[in-house]
């Protein structure tokens, strides 16, 4: 059941739009054909009035990059809502005692009132910082994540940050991530990267020399414990993970993050900026890898090990040998239940391409994928991995996604919370691929058994069989 994606399907789907919108959207959808190159448009403004899944710069900066840094307090500077919505919503787990070693499950805001809009919020901001430092003496620093009004009313948070940095003797980082900036979360990542670069990176030196196996893990936000699963592999390989960007991360780690031999980057989209900067400024090389599913993990272990000496290379092989049988057991259990199942993905960051290998390990096929806020370099990395006939969509609107799924009828959709229940109602199995649907980790060897179990659970849940009332079925048969 279900159609194969093709150009006329795309055209039909877009036909509902007014002319201009149709023309614009057509550039964002491609069905891969033999020999086709990546001609998809991306990183372009959303079309007003169409239901986009995208968020804003604040979401990218505060929600994604800064939020997971656990021993800093991230101030949602502006009205109360942005902080509220992003409070505990991203599952970037952290260790430590809440309120002392981590502030991750808390929401701090300057809670703008009308007066702050009229008279400006700078004074309030200074007070907010002072009060926070007094109530949380163990805090290691602050980020000031600006919400829309801050940029519009002309506040000078940079100057407040500068003054208060001196007064409180703590790094205080102004982050100009007002929601109206840019066109998606993506600019927020960039702004956040730049803020790290300007206000933290290189500001502290560890006394000991940089070890030969010192690395940073970059672009892992510890969703459902991903960082812990990834670190485990790297450490079993003999590497020393000196800092994580930014899942369960610490201020100290970020400040001394230039003291490593290699940067390992998982989420290219959100963190390539800082990698490039560290390469240029500190000469630290960086390497993309993929810890989803045993095939990609194996490939990545070897690729990473190849950057080091034989000790690491041998340890890498040992790690692979150790986990191969465990992974085989997982495959033996789940592959027969999942073989041939068709998946459509629509996520942010790295997952639309990085999880493909994991699905393929389970015998599944990705028949459609797309990104909320990717750039050309993301699609360049994605296209080669896709089979012919795959549909690829950029910044898909809910209309488009609904229609694609409704026509292609995949066995599984992996997307976000806003999409989840649309497809559940359609009777199409679904897993949230931002939050791992409150499960996880999905990274590493620890993650794959959970990933496999979850995909099986979604697709093969007998509850899916309940959807149609049996008396309706009877009628149809007649």
């Amino acid at each position, binding site marked *: 059941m279900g159609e194969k994606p093709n150009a006329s399907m795309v055209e039909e789907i877009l036909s509902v739009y007014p002319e201009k919108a149709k023309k614009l959207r057509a550039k964002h959808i491609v069905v891969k054909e033999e020999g086709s190159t990546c001609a998809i448009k991306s990183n372009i403004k959303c079309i007003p009035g169409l239901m986009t899944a995208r968020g804003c710069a604040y979401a990218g900066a505060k929600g994604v990059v800064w939020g997971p840094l656990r021993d800093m307090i991230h101030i949602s500077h502006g009205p109360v809502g942005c902080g509220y919505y992003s409070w505990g919503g991203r599952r970037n787990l952290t260790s*430590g*005692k809440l309120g002392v070693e981590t502030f991750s499950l808390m929401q*701090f805001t300057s809670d703008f009132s009308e007066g702050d809009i009229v008279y400006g919020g700078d004074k309030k901001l200074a007070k907010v910082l002072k009060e926070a430092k007094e109530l949380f003496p163990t805090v290691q620093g602050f980020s000031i994540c600006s919400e829309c009004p801050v940029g519009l009313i002309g506040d000078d948070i940079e100057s407040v940050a500068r003054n208060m940095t001196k007064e409180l003797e703590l790094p205080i980082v102004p982050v100009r991530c007002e929601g109206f900036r840019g066109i998606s979360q993506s600019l927020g990542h960039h702004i956040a990267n730049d803020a790290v670069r300007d206000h933290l990176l290189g500001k502290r030196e560890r006394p000991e020399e940089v070890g030969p196996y010192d690395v940073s893990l970059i672009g892992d936000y510890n969703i459902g414990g991903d960082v812990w699963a990834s670190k485990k592999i790297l450490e079993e390989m003999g590497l020393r993970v000196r800092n994580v960007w930014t899942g369960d991360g610490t201020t100290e780690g970020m400040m001394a993050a230039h003291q490593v031999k290699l940067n390992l980057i998982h989420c290219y989209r959100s963190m390539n900026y800082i990698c490039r900067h560290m390469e240029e400024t500190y000469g630290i090389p960086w390497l993309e890898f993929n810890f989803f599913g045993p095939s990609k993990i194996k490939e990545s272990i070897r690729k990473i090990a190849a950057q080091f000496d034989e000790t690491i290379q041998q340890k890498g092989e040992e790690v692979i040998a150790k986990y191969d049988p465990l992974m085989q057991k997982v495959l033996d259990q789940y592959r027969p239940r999942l073989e041939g199942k068709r998946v459509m993905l629509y996520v942010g960051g790295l997952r639309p391409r990085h999880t493909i290998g994991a699905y393929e390990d389970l015998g599944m096929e990705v028949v459609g994928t797309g990104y909320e806020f990717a750039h050309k370099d993301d699609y360049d990395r994605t296209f080669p991995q896709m089979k012919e006939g795959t549909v690829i969509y950029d910044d898909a609107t809910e209309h488009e996604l609904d229609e694609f799924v409704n026509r292609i009828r995949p066995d599984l959709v992996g997307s976000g919370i806003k999409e989840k229940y649309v497809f559940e*109602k359609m009777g199409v199995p679904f897993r949230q691929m931002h939050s791992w649907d409150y499960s996880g980790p999905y990274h590493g060897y620890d993650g794959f058994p959970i990933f496999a179990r979850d995909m099986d659970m979604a697709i093969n849940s007998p509850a899916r069989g309940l959807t149609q009332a049996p008396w309706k079925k009877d009628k149809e048969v007649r």
Partner: protein
Amino acid sequence: MSTANNCAQSVQSVLDWMATEEYKEKNFAREALVINPARTCQPFGAMLCALGIEGCLPFLHGSQGCAAYFRSCLTRHVREPVPMVSDSMTEDAAVFGGQANLIEGLKNAYATYKPSIIGMFSSCMAEVIGDDMKSFIGNARNQGAIPEDFPIAYANTPSFVGSHITGFDNMLKGLLQSLADTRHGKWTNGRLYVVPGFDLYPANLREYRRLITAMGIYMTVLPDFTEALDSPNTGEYKMYQPGTSMAELADALNASGFIFLQKYSTAGTQKFVKNVQKITSEAVTMPVGIRNTDAFLMTLQAMTGKSIPAEIEKERGRAVDAAIDAHQYIHGKRFALYGDPDLLLGLVGFLLDMGGIPVHILCSNGNEPFRKEMEALLASSSFGSEGRVYNGKDLWHLRSLLLTEPVDMLIGDTHGKTVAKDANIPLARIGYYLPDRVHLHRQPIVGYQGAINLITMIANLFIDEYDRNCPEERFEFLR
């Protein structure tokens, strides 16, 4: 001693200090910083309101990021799709104003999602730059982006004023002002308009409908987001669920009367309906618990002259039975509560009925009239004497309260789970934002059935807690 131990020790000493009276004072001395507020911003409430009109597409004039956040949060609570568009304002709109976005947005949304009406409200961005939605919408019509007569309601919902309940109220008033026909004056439509207020229990709305219908009253729930927040799974996705029809909305000002089931989340609309439009209307305390439900039904009786049927009276009798059967598990227990003002008034009344002792009553979005009403309620019962109202405070204030003046149970939403854990007391999950449990919104907390549900939940939570912590020799079959 190892460093790790030292560290652990110093962490513990900070935690200990954070539990002191001294810390509490420092904490309450805060003037600028807000930590873990139990409230969010206006447009969220406006979105909910718009979802209650059949065929209505909520439309945010502002940044798309807001829309993504609102939709995510509501979806997590009800585990339902939440359709909504924005006009994706970005930097150029910040400079030149959002009219172009608004017009293009209306055009695209109208063509693509085929709404019957659009409910528009504003993000703080649009408010700060001073966009004039009314004239923009007019221009959109003039430019043919949407048909001349296509119904659009709009409301200004600045995020830096009030909270989600204000937004709900503003949107509701906006719907009436924009789309309801002028009151005829002599003729009324014989219907009672029932305004639930900001209430994220679709089961509550069903319960209102059931009770009012049982009294033989013709009614319209406005806005009726029951189905939007709890639609059946049939293998088909429908963007629009049944709700208040456009015809009923248009006829709203010809209502025989309005009843508002929350006061604080509908204050502006009440004024408009009652003072401006001069429509018979009553606002009751949210009918949580038996006495509040009594008052609700008797208000209906007084408004309509209809009597309360025997079946409902019997239901009441069963709720009373449940209350008396379980009073010993709740009587004398001390509670902290937080939430929206209307919910708190309902819940505190309910607790007082059961002999529970409300101690800390925290309302991040409470105002002075709320404080006065709550204090009067507390003063009406000897069980209320320990109750103190904390308006405008947040869950970090609450933490200090719980650690310096302990209680037996916290009533609040999922965000309270960390403080409840720190205070080592059970959390009764009641109110909005319950993403960490399933289906709690599918059971009413209003009406007599809701009273039974609350009694059941709270009493059994206490018993659970006792069973879990009691010495082994007190582990028994009888409770």
